[in-house]
């Protein structure tokens, strides 16, 4: 009897314990608390290499920097076209070579100092300093003498095309008229930095000044750096000194450097993130079916393609390259394999890049491909040695490579041998042309066809195919000189036609940006570079 009572008490205790645990389950998630307090939790890929805008190179770094800095112009939230930033207006000389920026007088650094034309001048002097070795210094090379200064050919910065006419007027003189100059200004290499702060923590013209730590950092953007814990979180808070602070509605943004897509997706499902950086391929169908309102698929300014090493037989023969290009079933690759809304790529430049869509388009034509292959001396692939296809070790690349291997085998009878290499080994093989065909991708630096097409000029740092065509080089140079926008795009049309005729590359698909996002995030529009200016964002809990 007594024993039974003890047993019963034991069961009661267990029940109470279980209920208390379930009680825990009703707690508020992090995003719900964030909705109340206007705190955005954003997955941001890997840990940023640095927060110095002249040292970093990656997209995830840019996504943090655009909250901390503001350039002369800033991005429109709908389509990223340049709108007034620190400069409230600007004039352009009739020949398109001289830009005069009038800075707003209420632009402030986060320590309260005014942002002046001199600040920009000193910043750009640091940006171009040969000793800093900024990897993006070439973004400034459109400016008069910037390249010469950066390469140490001239040492007098006064000869570079920057001039502070007074505290609030900055004049920029270009080498040539550059129609996309204002778009370039959106890049982080054009953000101003606060020299006195950098000087306090090291030599501003060398790397390694430790000024970007929380507590030291001074910026001029809508937010200021509040916390930086490596591999954990970067917190930025609304800046009280930002000129347009009344428009800023978020109080904080937490950038979470979650490298693993699976981990990030789980954090999203557990209510820890408002928006993810990416979504694993395997999860896309699941979201499409059960949570379409949380799935975000947006066009992205990037192309996935294969490079061909044109210096080695048999692929130095244009006809074989063409046969390969004509027998990739891109539609089915996108629809059945990738399934993330990617678009089949029949040219290099993503359609609609600053109003440009290539007139020349590849097409799929198996009969023609067979004919070309036979003409090259390999009817039905007979006699053609096995071709090696290189990709960096990643599941998604393997699946694509296997599909294409199948297509070439089936349509042309060509044997393709797949090789995968670890990332840096693969980059090294690519650079040294130690491959036959190699997986590649390119994400535009700015919204203009030039960022794709100037890649393949003779000896270009990112050409990496061994391909060279004097007429192509001439056209790219001509485009850089052409002021009239429609005429300039015509020149690009001719260049891309040459590229698609010679085919040192095989375009495969145009990227989309696939991510998960909660419905309460407002002011977020699909943009081609996946930038979303934070000062227009806000959280609307009722939309949840």
């Amino acid at each position, binding site marked *: 009897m007594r024993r039974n009572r003890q047993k019963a008490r034991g069961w009661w205790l267990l029940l109470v314990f279980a209920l208390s*645990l*379930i009680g*825990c*389950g009703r*707690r508020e*998630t*992090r995003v719900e608390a964030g909705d109340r307090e206007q705190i955005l939790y954003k997955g941001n890929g890997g*840990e940023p*290499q*640095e*927060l*110095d805008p002249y*040292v970093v*190179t990656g997209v995830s770094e840019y996504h943090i920097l655009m909250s901390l800095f503001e350039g002369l112009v800033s991005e429109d939230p709908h389509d990223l076209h340049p709108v007034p930033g620190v400069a409230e207006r600007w004039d352009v000389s009739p020949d398109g070579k001289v830009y005069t920026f009038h800075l707003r007088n209420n632009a402030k650094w986060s320590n309260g100092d005014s942002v002046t034309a001199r600040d920009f001048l000193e910043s750009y002097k640091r940006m171009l300093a*040969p*000793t800093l*070795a*900024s*990897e993006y*210094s*070439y973004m400034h090379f459109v400016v008069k003498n910037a390249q010469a200064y950066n*390469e140490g050919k001239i040492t007098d910065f006064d000869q570079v095309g920057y001039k502070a006419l007074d505290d609030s007027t900055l004049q920029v003189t270009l080498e040539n008229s550059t129609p996309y100059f204002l778009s370039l200004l959106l890049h982080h290499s054009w953000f101003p930095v606060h020299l006195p702060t950098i000087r306090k923590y090291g030599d501003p013209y*060398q*790397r*390694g000044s*430790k000024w*970007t*730590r929380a507590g030291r950092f001074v910026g001029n953007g809508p937010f200021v750096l509040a916390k930086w*814990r*490596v*591999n*954990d979180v970067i917190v930025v808070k609304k800046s009280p000194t930002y000129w347009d602070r009344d428009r800023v509605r978020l109080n904080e943004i937490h950038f*979470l450097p*979650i*490298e*693993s897509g*699976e*981990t990030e997706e*789980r*954090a999203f*499902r*557990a209510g*820890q993130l408002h928006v993810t950086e990416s979504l694993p391929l395997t999860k896309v169908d699941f979201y499409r079916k059960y949570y379409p309102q949380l799935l975000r698929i947006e066009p992205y300014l990037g192309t996935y393609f294969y490079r061909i090493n044109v210096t080695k037989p048999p692929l130095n023969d244009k006809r074989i390259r063409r046969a390969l290009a004509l027998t990739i079933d891109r539609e089915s690759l996108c629809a059945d394999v990738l399934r993330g809304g990617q678009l089949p790529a029949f040219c290099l430049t993503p359609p609609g890049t600053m109003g440009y869509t290539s007139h020349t388009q590849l097409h799929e034509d198996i009969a023609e491909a067979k004919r070309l292959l036979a003409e090259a001396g390999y009817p039905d692939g007979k006699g053609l040695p096995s071709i090696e296809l290189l990709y960096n070790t990643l599941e998604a690349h393997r699946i694509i490579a296997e599909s294409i291997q199948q297509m070439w085998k089936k349509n042309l009878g060509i044997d393709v041998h797949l090789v995968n290499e*670890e*990332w*840096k*080994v693969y*980059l*090294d*093989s690519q*650079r040294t042309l130690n491959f036959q065909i190699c997986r590649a*991708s390119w994400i535009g630096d700015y919204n203009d066809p030039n960022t794709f097409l100037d890649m393949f000029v003779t000896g270009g*740092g*990112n050409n*990496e195919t061994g391909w060279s065509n004097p007429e192509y080089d001439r056209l790219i140079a001509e485009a850089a000189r052409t002021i009239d926008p429609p005429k300039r795009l015509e020149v690009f049309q001719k260049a891309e036609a040459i590229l698609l005729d010679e085919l040192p590359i095989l375009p495969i698909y145009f990227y989309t940006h696939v991510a998960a996002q909660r419905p309460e995030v407002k002011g977020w529009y699909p943009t081609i570079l996946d930038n979303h200016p934070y000062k227009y964002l806000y959280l609307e809990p009722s939309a949840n």
Partner: protein
Amino acid sequence: MFRFIARRFLETIPVLFVIATVTFFMVRLAPGGPFTTEKSIPPEIQKKLEAFYGLNKPLFQQYLDYMGNLLKGDLGPSFKYATWTVNELIWSAFPVSLELGCYGLAIALVLGLGAGILASLRQNSAVDHVSMSLAMLGICVPTFVMGPLLILVFGLTLGWVNASGWESARDRILPSLTLGFFYAAYIARLTRGGMLEVLNQDFIRTARAKGASGKRIIFRHALKGGLLPVVAFLGPAIAGIITGSFVVETIFQVPGLGRFFVTAAFNRDYTMVLGTVLFYAVLIISLNLVVDIVQVWLNPKLRFE
């Protein structure tokens, strides 16, 4: 004893020297470098970057420079995380891994020793079979399956804990369990084996014959000998557990040292690779020394060797 420790300490110096040397040249042999990126860097910029980090000097000179700085305790700047030094990164990440490792170790010891002792006392009973099957399962189910499973149940379905992160005390639970289960399984099997061996020996029978209680026999007589294999295993295991697990840290987004250990190699972050390898080596060597001392204390036979 003092001479033993002093000798062992002196022995570590050439070991560390060899590890540093081999690692230094091994990372340099790998194709690609810290500044090999998808968008190629103009050659002049690349040269200046290499000059800034001293990579333009002859390799042997670089090696001498590195060893010189190492003697001063300076592991150099990280190539990838430009604003941090390797020392800073290790000292920010190690406490996290250490904390997680301690929880994991505590779970592993409580579960592992408990299950192992119970199983050895009731050999071939249901308790033995169940606990050893669980231990087998624990060894076979890798952490990258166990972690997401725990998250699915306790994070996503029940909503009791976060799916990842390292903020509140609650965030510590699942990673500690994942790490702990894995080691608990090994410890349970080793404890059972060690205990069974000791329990069958003559001195235990003598103790029983003299009328010693069951508790006294286990804790006073058997455990000391039975734990020897566990102690030998714990040395390297503790070093592994407190320097962090890449898998557990990635699944739970824990800002520990384990992730640096692996990503540094991917990034060709030369100084970071060397720093983490040396740090790990020092830990393993010290913990092995501790293990040796404990073993001598547990096993009197060793004192005369």
